């Protein structure tokens, strides 16, 4: 019955075009949805057995495909916690029901408890760095916790290394051995003094007094004291002897340091600190500190959050330091285009897409995380509209075929009066 076949075929064509219009409608509706991936309707022919007497028309089958792997344009927003992925990968997020899914929608903002939640209500997951670099599970989401940005307190980092580079005036008068600062006598004299702030085990500031004293031609002595033990006038004698003393010798030909390039000090209430004295010179000019720097962070309150391209979340503290507190991983699958799209711009793995594997941004196979940008929808209005016009024409054409089939059927039915 080829006439019925004509009507069935054209009906399938209309249904297919209707489906196509539906995808266009979804794409246009989501043309401003962050992280939305456009969907496309593909057609394939469906044939039926044909007898030698006449042709039995087949029909058209509809298949929709979502181009999840397409990169959307990253547009700047100005908010540091808005994230966009340049390249492959998905954020791992947790839904309100506790389900772990993947998304490209990085419109995160801290909620009341400091968790980063995106506009669809999904919480960003990451690895806490409080106990060192995380050991990640490549094929699963275990070990991840919600990334929390404001409640993290800084665990203080005691000072261990530093530099102290000065010019010692070569024309200074040498101090007699009995009056050197290292003797800690009340009559001790010195050529120059500086102080450095170091950080102890508990994040407390420990100030070291560093005395530079000429002991003879081209030889100097650097002595470190704990400032807390200074006398009431701020000088000698200190409550306890020197923390460390180092003898420096200089080349008389160019004033450069020959020996004594490090000063090892155990910070009171802190760690062993190695001060690098390399670069210290003895030239005939004023005493001046050319570089004085010690590492370490004291405990203080986080003031802002910074997210690096490699996914490391830093907390900036009011004392000027910053500390890595979380690392945001990315997940990807073998065939992203076969991921199942769910409401809320999220994707779930399917048997066709393959299982998710987890890695860090900027590693091989993963893109980079950009702060302050959002990934725009990949739906392009102009191409959607041309598709729509095309679908409309196709639908009309199918309906004409159907109508013709129906008219012919009418003619056939009217043969018998």
């Amino acid at each position: 019955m080829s006439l019925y076949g004509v009507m069935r075929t054209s009906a399938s064509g209309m249904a297919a075009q209707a489906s196509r219009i539906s995808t266009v409608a979804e794409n246009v509706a989501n043309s401003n949805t962050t992280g939305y991936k456009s969907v496309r309707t593909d057609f394939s022919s469906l044939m039926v057995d044909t007898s030698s007497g006449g042709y039995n028309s087949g029909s058209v089958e509809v298949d929709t495909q979502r181009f999840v792997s397409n990169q959307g344009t990253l547009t700047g927003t100005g908010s540091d916690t808005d994230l966009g992925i340049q390249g492959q990968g998905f954020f791992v997020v947790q839904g309100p029901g506790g389900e772990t899914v993947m998304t490209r929608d990085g419109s995160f903002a801290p909620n009341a408890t400091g968790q980063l939640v995106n506009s669809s209500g999904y919480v960003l997951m990451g690895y806490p760095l409080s106990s060192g670099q995380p050991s990640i599970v490549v094929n699963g989401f275990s070990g991840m916790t919600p990334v929390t940005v404001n409640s993290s307190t800084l665990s203080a980092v005691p000072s261990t290394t530093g530099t102290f580079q000065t010019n010692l005036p070569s024309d200074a008068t040498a101090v007699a051995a009995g009056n050197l600062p290292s003797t800690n006598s009340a009559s001790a004299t010195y050529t120059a003094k500086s102080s450095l702030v170091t950080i102890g085990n508990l994040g407390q500031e420990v100030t070291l007094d560093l005395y530079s004293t000429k002991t003879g031609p081209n030889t100097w002595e650097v002595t470190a004291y704990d400032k807390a033990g200074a006398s009431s006038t701020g000088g000698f004698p200190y409550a306890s002897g020197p923390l460390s003393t180092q003898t420096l010798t200089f080349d008389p030909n160019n004033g450069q340091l020959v020996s004594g390039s490090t000063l090892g000090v155990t910070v009171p209430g802190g760690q062993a600190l190695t001060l690098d004295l390399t670069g210290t010179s003895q030239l005939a000019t004023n005493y001046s500190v050319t570089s004085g720097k010690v590492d370490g962070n004291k405990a203080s309150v986080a003031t802002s959050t910074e997210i690096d391209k490699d996914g490391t979340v830093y907390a900036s503290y009011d004392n000027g330091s910053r500390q890595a507190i979380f690392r945001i991983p990315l997940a990807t699958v073998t065939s992203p285009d076969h991921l199942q799209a769910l409401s809320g711009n999220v994707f779930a793995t399917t048997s066709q897409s393959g299982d998710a594997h987890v890695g860090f941004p900027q590693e091989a196979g993963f893109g980079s995380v950009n702060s302050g940008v959002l990934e725009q929808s990949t739906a392009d209005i102009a191409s959607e509209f041309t598709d729509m016009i095309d679908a409309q024409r196709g639908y009309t054409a199918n309906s004409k075929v159907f109508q013709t089939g129906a008219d012919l059927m009418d003619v056939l039915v009217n043969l018998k009066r």
Partner: protein
Amino acid sequence: MSGISLALSNALSGLMATTGQTVVTSRNITRANDENYTREISTTSTSASGGASLDPTQRAADKKLLDALLQSTSMSSGQSTLLDSITAISNTVGDVQDDGSVAWSIDQFQQKLQAVEADPGNSTLASQAIAGAKTLASALNSASQVTQAVRSDADAGMAKSVATINDLLAQFQKLDNSIAGNSLDPDSRAAAMDSRDAVLKKLSAEIGIQTVTRSDNSTAIYTDGGVTLFDKSPRLLTFSASTTLTPGMSGAPVYADGVQITGSSSPMPSKTGNLVAYAQVRDQIAPTYQNQLDEIARALVTSFSEKDQSASPSQPDATGLFSYSGSPAVPGAALVPGLASQIKVNSAFDPASGGNANLLRDGGANGAAYKYNTLNVAGFQGRLQSLAQAMGQTQSFSASTQLPASNTILGLATASAGWVEATRSDADSKATNADATQTRTKAALMSATGVNLDTEMATMLNLEKSYQASAKVLTTINQMLGDLFQVIR
């Protein structure tokens, strides 16, 4: 992603980038007259999708010129403070020829003494000589008073300067920590750096400083003597102001980081700035002038002292016409601190206080044993002659006057006035030079980092054109989409 949406997104990024640059330009223009403002430079670069993205704003900072400005500011403000204080002293000294100056008073007194010597019996002349002596004593008193007032002011100035420095260091800590902490957006960061430079400029007026900027943009401050003032946290200055400063009493030194930074015994002395200038006035210039006044007073008291005139002298020398708090004992050869503020005419000589002016001729103010004119002769010249001689005689003075050790009293007073004037004119020329250097450095810094309105206007025109172009692209895309919608109907 491609097609019209990309075109739209790129045109939009162009608009946003241009807006961002306009913000920077407008900030440059509005703050063109702010000398603490450093010009900002805004550039754009291509983003991943081909649009324009705004680069972080750069500051046209120049550390070397800023350092030079800080140095010249310390020098200039210090010299100007020094000049102000010396001028205060110099005003009391006045011209040697003028009424009221110590040298003039000595000269007048000497002339009157000679007049009495010529006519010893004339008690009117004797009274005039006593009046001259009183003028001289009060000239010394008031000069000494002003000198101590200058010292007290300098001490108060040091206290104020220390308070200002500590306050500025506390401000600096807040700014420096926020800059080093990456906790600011680029705009506030630039503003914070401007404020930090402004604090440094203010700080340099008070004390000479050197700065070291580290990789994280934090800055350490050292005095020009090398003492740490700020490194992560401020090393606050300590100073205990003196409530009163009497001659010979030295004021407290200033400590920074446990190191004495003012005064001659400082191991790492600061060299420039208000604080140092005040300390110099308080500890060196004013005390030296006070020493000179004290030595003039001591010479007067000693020269007019009376000796025991008995056949076998048993009484010690006693002060005569000029007395002081230690009278009747005569001061020794050494400097007596504060003598100039105590010297007065013995009331026994002063007719106004019921005294007898003829004691100048006769002696004996300290009792009969000291009487020179034992025969009560009206024309007795012996004592007057020896007094006039003593006035004209060279005497030796303390080295702490910083004047020639051997001089007459009038010579010392004249040399003292000369010393004050020389110190003042030296400070004046140094202040003028330092001020000129500071003005030039400031101009150089302004031209390197300040805002040039012409450039900004040209930039603004460029930005206007590119904004128009981006907007035109948007209009065109809108037109194209409109055409597409026409097709659908």
